[in-house]
């Protein structure tokens, strides 16, 4: 029996072991991918900023580029080992690869695309395999269409069916940058999960959107500048404070020092004292304000940075009630500056925050410098970063 060969569930050995080092040099810039991780059957999200090395990693696994050093093993099949000088060519690796731009063959119809990788099967069996995979991904009605005649979501299903028809050992899925709408995508991912319930292969899914990590992944590997900075369940990994970088800060008009006052594990939140200079629990002289933030892996007393986008802050002239936001902070409007049609209000709530308003909001609320206002900030609009 097959099942006896494998250790019991939970202890199952890795479906893929991947260790890769690859240095890329272009002009004066150089980049090094240096990563080691294992994959279990099921969906693992590969997450990282653009330029973190996600595509390079997929290309190394697929054999489209050759790592300088490393070892790639699927189940017990070694497809790359720099020490033993093993490097199977792409066509022998049995990898399903859904490219970011899908790369469907434009001169072949949907059925021919799906059958591309299973030419070695006999006629009847090939038909049956293609039919079965087309049914799994609900594209049987499209089989005789050309890729140019079908929608983006359908094309992605075809690319998926084509990649899986060859019965691969691993599926590499590079999410297209042109976002599909959420229902379309989640329906497709449900079909992929259903297919994988029977096949149990590891799926490495490159996501560009933070929300997808929670929605799609059972596991997540976070890549930063070519290195793995975290691996685990989405919740455990994504709540780790991120490294503060210029690029990430670019989006936040309000950045402050924050000190964790208390954590509330059960509610998934914590309290932070926020100030323009370094504040801590004992400092009462320096201006500061306490806010509720999402829970990250940090002890009370830990020093972090918090970023709040000016567009994420609501402004009210009276204290709102019956509202979900937890941070409702009284303050005084100090100044307003207008850039084109966006008005930036500076509000003093102990610390000074920039708040984006529309001209209509200013007029209907009758705002002027000196007005008493309330700021409303959702817990999840407070982005924590490591100091």
């Amino acid at each position: 029996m097959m099942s006896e060969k494998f250790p019991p569930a939970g202890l199952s050995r890795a479906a893929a072991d991947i260790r890769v080092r690859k240095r890329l040099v272009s002009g004066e810039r150089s980049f090094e991918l240096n990563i080691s991780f294992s994959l279990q059957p099921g969906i693992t999200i590969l997450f990282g900023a653009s330029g973190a090395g996600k595509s390079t990693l997929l290309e190394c696994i697929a054999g489209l580029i050759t790592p300088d050093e490393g070892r790639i093993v699927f189940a017990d099949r070694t497809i790359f080992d720099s020490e033993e000088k093993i490097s199977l060519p792409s066509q022998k690796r049995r990898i399903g690869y859904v490219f970011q731009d899908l790369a469907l063959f434009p001169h072949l119809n949907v059925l021919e695309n799906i059958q591309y990788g299973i030419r070695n099967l006999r006629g009847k069996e090939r038909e049956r395999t293609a039919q079965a995979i087309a049914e799994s991904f609900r594209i049987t009605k499209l089989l005789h269409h050309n890729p140019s005649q079908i929608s983006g979501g359908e094309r992605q299903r075809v690319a998926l069916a084509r990649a899986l028809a060859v019965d691969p050992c691993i599926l590499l899925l590079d999410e297209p940058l042109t976002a599909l709408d959420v229902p379309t995508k989640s329906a497709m991912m449900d079909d992929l999960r259903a297919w994988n319930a029977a096949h149990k292969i590891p799926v490495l899914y490159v996501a560009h959107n933070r929300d997808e990590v929670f929605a799609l992944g059972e596991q997540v590997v976070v890549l930063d500048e070519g290195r793995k900075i975290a691996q685990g369940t989405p919740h455990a990994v994504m709540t780790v404070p991120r490294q503060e970088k210029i690029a990430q800060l670019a989006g936040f008009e309000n950045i402050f020092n924050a000190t964790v006052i208390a954590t509330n594990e059960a509610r998934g939140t914590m309290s932070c004292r926020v100030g323009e200079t370094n504040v801590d629990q004992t400092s009462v002289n320096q201006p500061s304000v306490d806010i509720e933030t999402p829970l990250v892996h940090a002890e009370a007393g830990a020093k972090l940075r918090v970023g709040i986008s000016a567009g994420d802050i609501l402004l009210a002239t009276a204290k709102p009630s019956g509202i979900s936001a937890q941070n409702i902070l009284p303050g005084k409007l100090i100044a307003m500056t207008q850039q084109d049609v966006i008005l930036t209000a500076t509000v003093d709530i102990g610390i000074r925050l920039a708040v984006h308003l529309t001209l209509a909001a200013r007029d209907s609320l009758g705002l002027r410098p000196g007005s008493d206002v309330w700021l409303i900030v959702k817990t999840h609009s407070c982005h924590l970063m490591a100091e």
Partner: protein
Amino acid sequence: MDWQAFFLTIRLAMLVSVILLVAGLPIAYWVAYSRWRWKFLLESVVALPIVLPPTVLGFYLLVALGPRSPVGRWWLEVTGHTLAFTFWGLVIGSVIYSLPFAVQPFAAAFHTVDRRLLAASATLGASKFSTFRRVIIPLSIPGLVTGFVLSFAHTLGEFGVVLMIGGNIAGVTRTVSIEIYDQVEAFNYSAANHIALVLLIVSFVLLSFVYGINRNSGAVWPWK
């Protein structure tokens, strides 16, 4: 009008473009995909006939095909005659002379095939040859037709190389361009005009066809 010269020319051009279609594909593949650092040298060799005076090319070919070169001597020993001043000598000369007109459109067409499609083909288990046959060739049809037609048209009108290595033997090496020259030499302007007009029209039709398929491969070319 001398139909003998006309059909000889058509036969020559047809043979040459078929040979170039077969021989040009691997060369063009190599030109399009090789990452060899000295590749540009071989690309220059392939392109030489575009800039070289046909007499220069013809002269070296004549030497190479004649009994003084090892190749010519070997051919003489095997067959008992030299390749110079024969139809097959003309074929060899024309193949070399028209090489860039086949290879360059082929290579340009291969080059525009999206690399992602080649990567996709490889991950789906296809060998390099299989990818060439099943992806690169079908997506390069307009370029292949262009190369075929251009090498045909170019061979149709060649003069210098033919004169150098083929001479002017009726039914063997006398092509239409030689025929025109002959008629003009003999002050038969009317006969020269007839042949020249045919060559002009044929060339125009062929080139229109080439530009037509490259403007919109779907418009003139019936299949996708």
